[in-house]
């Protein structure tokens, strides 16, 4: 179990830094051009606002426990695995083509979401192959997209 408060502290801190980065970039782009706002005008205020509210949230989280809940480690692992699976699809598409990569992606996603025994895996594989056919038909043929 990971406490949500830890996550929130991390996110607020990151966003505070992002806000500061946006402000500094805004200054680089130029705040004003004569009497007229320039490219950095909006980023300057946006970054400032983001940094301010994120810092406020950070302080609030430090002071009080705020979010009491926690996340299961398995859920975090699942988030990571799904992201990896989609990332794998992106990489594999370049080698084996999008359709074949999509079959693997779908089986992987099915397994991540609970299809672990042979029967469910068979079912997911069948769905994946059928779905790949549909994807090819819809995106490749009907919508005429240049698939990899």
């Amino acid at each position, binding site marked *: 179990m990971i406490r*949500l408060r830890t996550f929130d502290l991390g996110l607020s801190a990151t966003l505070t830094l992002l806000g500061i980065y946006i402000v500094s970039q805004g200054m680089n782009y130029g705040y004003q051009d004569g009497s007229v706002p320039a490219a950095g005008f909006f980023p300057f205020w946006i970054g400032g606002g983001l940094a301010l509210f994120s810092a406020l949230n950070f302080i609030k989280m430090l002071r009080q426990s705020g979010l009491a809940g926690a996340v299961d480690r398995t859920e975090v692992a*699942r*988030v990571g695995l*799904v*992201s990896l699976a*989609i990332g794998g699809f992106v990489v594999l598409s370049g080698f084996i083509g999008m359709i074949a990569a999509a079959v693997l992606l779908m089986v992987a996603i099915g397994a991540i*979401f609970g299809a672990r025994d042979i029967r469910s895996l068979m079912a997911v594989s069948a769905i994946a192959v059928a779905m790949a056919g549909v994807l090819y038909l819809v995106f490749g043929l009907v919508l005429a997209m240049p698939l990899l």
Partner: protein
Amino acid sequence: MFESWQLLAQGLAAASQPTVLAAIMVGAIIGLFIGALPGLGPTAGVAILLPVAVSFDGTAAIAALGAVYYGAQYGGAVTAILLGIPGDASATMTVIDGHKMARNGKAGAALGLSIAASFIGGLIGLVLLTAFATTIAKAAIAFGPIEMTALMVFSLSLVSVLGGRDLNKAMISLFLGLFIGTIGLDPMVGLPRFDFGEVRLFDGIEFSIIAVGLFGLAEMYATPPSTGAHDDSGRFRFRELLPDVRSTLQCWRELGSGSLIGFFVGILPGAGATAATMISYAFAKRTSKHPERFGNGAMEGVAAPEAANNSAAYGNMIPMFALGIPGSGTTAVLMGGLLMIGLQPGPMLFQTQSEFVWTIFGSFYIGNLALVAITILLTPILASCAFVRPSYLFPAVIAIIAFGIYGINNAMFEVVLVIGFGLLGYLMMKLDYPPVPLVLGMILGPILERGIRRTLVASDGDLSVFFRSPIAIGIIVVTVVLLVSPWLVSQRTRRRAAAIAK
């Protein structure tokens, strides 16, 4: 007025020719289908069909393209409700309560309500379009940079209504959205901003990437895996798959207000439709006796934005047909279609091509009726999706997402972005950061920035011009009332409570 209806009657007759009818049906079904695919919205739908359509007869081509546009609006609601993914920025608000309803086992009722809302919104929008197209076009151009700035300030202030429990987190989400909106080439000088050396970011980040990541993937991440044989999510009653007429009628007030707000805000070029859904949702929540139900599966929360975005679609066509000014990405592509078949939209179109225009309007009425029939028949089948266990449903959905997002620019770069926004969305969901303000900021921020900067370039930095436009002053007053009134109300109830306590 009367003349309009006479012309419409002729238009309806002309649109009933077999070729045009066939075009409407094909367009409507393709639109419905593309709108339902996550990642592809009405703009993509019209763009995909355009090259094929223009090779046919002109009237049939535009009737088909129009049908794709409003068909996609119906389809977008399906994905928003069943999967929690807004297919288009204007479907974002439908996700909030629609998807909650589906998760509470009321998928059929939510879909039925969205169909009814789409139809009523569409019909009201159409009637207004028919009656006032040429006169109302003037209202659209009354909104220059100054007035747009004021309207955007007002829309962004809606974060106070749409923000959820923790206002501070809502503001973080809003500012994050505003930041995402600045990515790409600066609109005023062409300087690349926050591109991180990547040319693919020059045109900014496509909304559907944010929508799919922030809403769709995040939602799936947080869903517990199915536990195999003991899964009971497959059990449901057939009645839950059917639309619920009685509760739909109960939302008549939201349907009406949503349609009107949608139409009038939708006329304004820019993000009219999205702003309209947000304003109508906020209006419904504000005027509701039970605002706490909003966000937890309130019927009204589906009715208002769905009516608004369908009505806005027709409002949006007014500047295109009457002035030759496309008010949104979709109408810009649609206008490309008109140009390709040899028609120049603009003030002369109603005079020189009157028959064509009215046939197209007629086809819109027919198309909307057809869509209601099609979608109601499909509702039980679609609604049963909500009961498919994740281990079977998610693989298919994620694969469709990957292909749909790839299809935006035929590139994998966008798919990688989706993964990132999925992670962000998951964190935001777990940590109670509301996602709607992010969408609000991302869509409306760029319009606000353009408004402010255009105004100040034209006035040489003189801020007082904002207070010389009556429309802008009016909008700012409404904004102030919106922001201050809840505070005043709470003060009064506190005082009253104190008085009673004494």
